[in-house]
């Protein structure tokens, strides 16, 4: 990593340090709460799940809720954490590009001998680190909750489950970089990519609910997300989505180089 990219990544993370805790701690506490209450509701939960419609169980990837790992997947990792981290990803990369343009920082940084592509690369890298840090905080608090309550959560499974969110969220940082190539307004970029995030989730959901429409799942990144808490990380999907995110960011950098930065 060049000294310039390192300087930009450091500055970006320094600016976002509050955000990192503001996302990591609430998500971690929520996740810990889910794990802590599991032993006390385990029996009633199993019975309740048996009465759920099959379609609903299929939609949320629930076959049964007889372990704390399955409960963590159903309550946190199937919906809340991926959507929250996907949104955080686009917020994070937008703050380094469109947010910087709005605050005037971009003009100052681009008075120095740094290329716009490097700015985008640094924003993307800083976002990747921020996402990883939030996931580490969330996973750590979850494991602490399990230890405190004696819930018996497999730490390896929990870590796999949270780590698996990282490439998915990073993909939306890549989309954010592309959106910044078209608009320098943070509200437009975050709105557009958050809409795409929800749309992809809904497409995947529809594909799961209706076997005839299962083909549409291929255009959604959630198709490749899986259930890492129970099945472990699929290395191919993990690497594939990560590479796709990097490619999207590269396209975003290309677009950003070519656009006007109006004052």
């Amino acid at each position, binding site marked *: 990593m060049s*000294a*310039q990219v*390192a*300087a*930009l990544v*450091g*500055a970006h993370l*320094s*600016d976002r340090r509050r955000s990192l805790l503001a996302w990591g701690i609430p998500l971690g506490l929520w996740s810990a709460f889910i794990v802590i209450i599991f032993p006390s509701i385990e029996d009633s939960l199993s019975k309740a799940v048996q009465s759920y419609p099959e379609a609903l169980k299929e939609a949320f990837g629930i076959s049964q809720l007889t372990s704390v790992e399955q409960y963590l997947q159903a309550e946190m990792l199937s919906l809340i954490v991926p959507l929250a981290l996907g949104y955080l990803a686009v917020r994070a990369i937008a703050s380094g590009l469109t947010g*910087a343009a709005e*605050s*005037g*920082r971009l*003009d*100052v*940084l*681009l*008075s*120095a*001998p*740094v*290329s716009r592509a490097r700015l985008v690369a640094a924003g993307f890298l800083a976002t990747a680190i921020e996402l990883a840090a939030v996931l580490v905080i969330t996973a750590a608090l979850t494991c602490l909750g399990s230890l405190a309550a004696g819930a018996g959560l497999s730490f390896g499974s929990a870590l796999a489950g949270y780590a698996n969110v990282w490439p998915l969220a990073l993909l939306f940082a890549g989309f954010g970089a592309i959106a910044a190539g078209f608009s320098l307004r943070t509200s437009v970029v975050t709105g557009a990519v958050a809409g795409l995030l929800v749309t992809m989730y809904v497409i995947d959901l529809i594909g799961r609910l209706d076997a005839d429409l299962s083909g549409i799942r291929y255009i959604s990144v959630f198709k490749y997300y899986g259930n890492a808490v129970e099945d472990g990380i699929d290395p191919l999907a993990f690497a594939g989505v990560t590479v796709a995110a990097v490619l999207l960011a590269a396209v975003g950098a290309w677009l950003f180089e*070519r656009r*006007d*930065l*109006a*004052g």
Partner: protein
Amino acid sequence: MAVIETEQLTKLYGRTRGIEDVTFAVEPGEVFGFLGPNGAGKTTTIRTLLDMLHPSGGSAHIFGLDSRRDSVAIRARLGNLPGDFGYGKQTSGREALRVLARLRGMEGTGRAEALAERFHADLDRPLGQLSRGNRQKIGLILATFHSPELLILDEPTSGLDPLMQEEFLALVAEERQRGATVLLSSHELDEVERVCDRVGIVRAGKLIAVERVADLLAKAQRRNLVRVEFGEPVELEDVRKMPGVVKAEFAHATLEEIFLTYYGEGEGEA
């Protein structure tokens, strides 16, 4: 070789006018003023020179390098104060300096501390807690701390009090002595008159004149209007009785003159 040279530089925003056929050159060691009202095209010209806006036509060269293709190499040798300077509310001037110094490959922060002392700038408070004038001081420091060969300053005295404006004008004179070239935009004729060697007048996106400041002032001189200062207070009636005088009135001191009367050197510190 000119430090800045543009040839029919044009920037159009769809149907909206930007700048059109702007041709000028700034010689080494020269202080060149861009004069014009708000919206005339001064900032658009500067942003096009800095490759923040891509030209619709024409060309611009800085240090003999193409402003688009060689933008990064050009920016290694210049300092820029953007119009309406900002960086982020939570960041302090010192944090911004460190980032810029690292981007420029510098070990320390150059002459930033000396400049901060000179301009009474607080480098440690978050920029969001500073007044517009105090933020502008930070912007000036960020533009000049690395002693660049070329300074591009967009409305540099905007928000500065008269004392700091004086200090700024002194700094520009020192930069010229150091050998730096300066391009500054302003809509203050007085400021341009005091510090610039030549001035380009921008109107409605076009550069309508490039003149030496002295020539410009001579052209604009009203040869029937003279400002005379007497050694002692006089009666207006006595002046009106002088041969050829058709009108006489007392001149009011400008606010700047009043301000400088009350604040001597060194008294502007908080």
